[in-house]
């Protein structure tokens, strides 16, 4: 099926505005995606019709809201093909999911001298929590390198594995390079050595059809707001056996002890990891986002975004002195680049004034930017509502940057 981009754009009210007297072109999708009216309406409908604290009352609204909340969990289970619904835990976002696993896994399984493996291409969210828990537990954090084209150095990664390796934590898709890592292969290899694998899917779920059962990952973390859903809601998928074993991350403390009925509830999965009143509006919005994505079809989205990426690479590489970071064929729809020696902050500021939102800087991946020895990059990340014409305008803006600064 070919996507009808004009119809899709009509679903995203924010895209129709002008900034600096120019039509807004939004290419900062890897930071956060825009929200379709379906998501916005799901949130306002919830507050207009269903608002209630869930899992608690016996009254009409409470039952209705609880049902909708748990129905959403089922739909998210289907979306990522988890085996059972209670393997889907709601969190604040990928960062919280990653912190939860690092903290709870580290507390239970990391001993002095143990090792955790991650990669140089991680977002700080999948780097710092491991760095901290390793420091706390006297464990060693080992970092897998990348090759010059931005692909993970798998041989190096495998060479880091030892009999002290307790977990491997890596990203599905790099937020700077766009590289799609061969996670299924890595997971199979790690499992053959009895090592669990966590996947940071923050940049994965919005671009690729994710099947956690097929991947066989032990944990998969993602945020709602990077997949057309609201901010402040995310998911931790964990295999039941791991979630059962991990201690709670946050507790309801005395509240749990006081309310006997609730204590029983909290001890079960997934509620063990969902202390306190959850972000119900967020879950309603996320549910609508998942429905929206499933309607479009992840494979159709991928095919169209690949077209956008191909066009962007073609147009931008025709400009002299462009330096690209992350050039593997298997990549998500983003380009990270520098225009000659022009500072990314300068380039980004001018591109912004041309009405185009791009991201500049280290993209919360300082170890990776340091690895390249650059002050940062300009990153244009595409979504299915972007168009070929918008990419042409980006190429024009980059040319303008060149004439201004050279």
């Amino acid at each position: 099926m070919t996507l009808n981009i004009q119809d899709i754009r009509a679903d995203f009210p924010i895209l129709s505005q002008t900034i600096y007297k120019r039509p807004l072109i939004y290419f900062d999708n890897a930071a956060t995606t825009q929200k379709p009216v379906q998501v916005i309406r799901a949130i306002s409908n919830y507050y207009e019709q269903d608002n209630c604290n869930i899992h608690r009352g016996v009254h009409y609204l409470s039952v209705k809201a609880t049902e909708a909340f748990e129905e959403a969990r089922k739909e998210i289970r289907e979306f990522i093909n988890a085996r059972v619904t209670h393997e889907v835990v709601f969190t604040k976002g990928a960062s919280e999911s990653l912190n939860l696993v690092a903290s709870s896994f580290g507390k239970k399984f990391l001993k002095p001298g143990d090792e955790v493996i991650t990669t140089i291409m991680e977002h700080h969210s999948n780097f710092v929590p491991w760095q901290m828990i390793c420091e706390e537990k006297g464990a060693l954090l080992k970092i897998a390198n990348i090759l010059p084209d931005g692909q993970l150095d798998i041989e190096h990664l495998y060479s880091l594995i030892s009999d002290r390796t307790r977990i491997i934590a890596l990203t599905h898709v790099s937020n700077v390079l766009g590289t799609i890592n061969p996670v299924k292969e890595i997971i199979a290899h790690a499992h053959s050595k009895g090592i669990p694998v966590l996947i940071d899917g923050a940049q994965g779920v919005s671009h690729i059809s994710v099947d956690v059962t097929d991947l066989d990952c032990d944990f998969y973390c993602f945020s709602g707001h990077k997949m057309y859903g609201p901010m402040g809601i995310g998911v931790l998928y964990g295999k039941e056996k791991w979630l059962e074993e991990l201690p709670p991350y946050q507790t309801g403390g005395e509240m749990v002890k006081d309310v006997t009925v609730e204590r029983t509830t909290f001890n079960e999965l997934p509620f063990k990891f969902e202390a306190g009143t959850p972000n119900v509006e967020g879950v309603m919005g996320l549910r609508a986002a998942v429905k929206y994505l499933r309607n479009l079809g992840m494979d159709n989205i991928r095919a169209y975004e690949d077209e956008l990426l191909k066009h962007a690479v073609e147009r931008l590489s025709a400009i002299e002195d462009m330096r690209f970071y992350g050039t593997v064929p298997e990549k998500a729809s983003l380009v990270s680049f520098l225009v000659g020696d022009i500072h990314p902050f300068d380039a980004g500021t001018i591109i912004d004034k041309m009405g185009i939102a791009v991201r500049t800087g280290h993209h919360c991946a300082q170890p990776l930017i340091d690895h390249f020895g650059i002050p940062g990059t300009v990153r244009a990340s595409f979504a299915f509502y972007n168009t070929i014409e918008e990419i042409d305008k980006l190429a024009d803006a980059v040319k303008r940057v060149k004439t201004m600064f050279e």
Partner: protein
Amino acid sequence: MTIHEIENQLVDEFAAFDDWLDKYDIILDMGKSLPPMDPKFKTDQFIISGCQSKVWLHAEYRDGMVFFTADSDAIITKGIVSMLVKVLSGQTADAIQSADLNFIDRIGLKEHLSPTRSNGLSSMVKQMKLYAMVFKMKG
């Protein structure tokens, strides 16, 4: 000239241009006109770190006036640095401390001085005023 007079002069230079890109062309020119900074001051000791671009700032106190030299690794930042130096360098410590620097706002560049812009400029202004205060205290 007083701080206020230099500010007005800068505002006038920008007033003729409506398009943002033209305004940035002026900023780039301002960056080019910034007197070069002695390389010995372009060290970590004199750096004001922003998340995205770096600023180096050095100050001297002569005859009751504060003189600044500065630089940045990004050209737009350097342009704004140049304006701040033009406005504040060679002024008395008292005048620097009480300057409200509203010309940045009048030109429409307020966003660049916002702490969230993370280009080191908002910290630069604080640092310039701090220098003025310290020089004044030391006499």
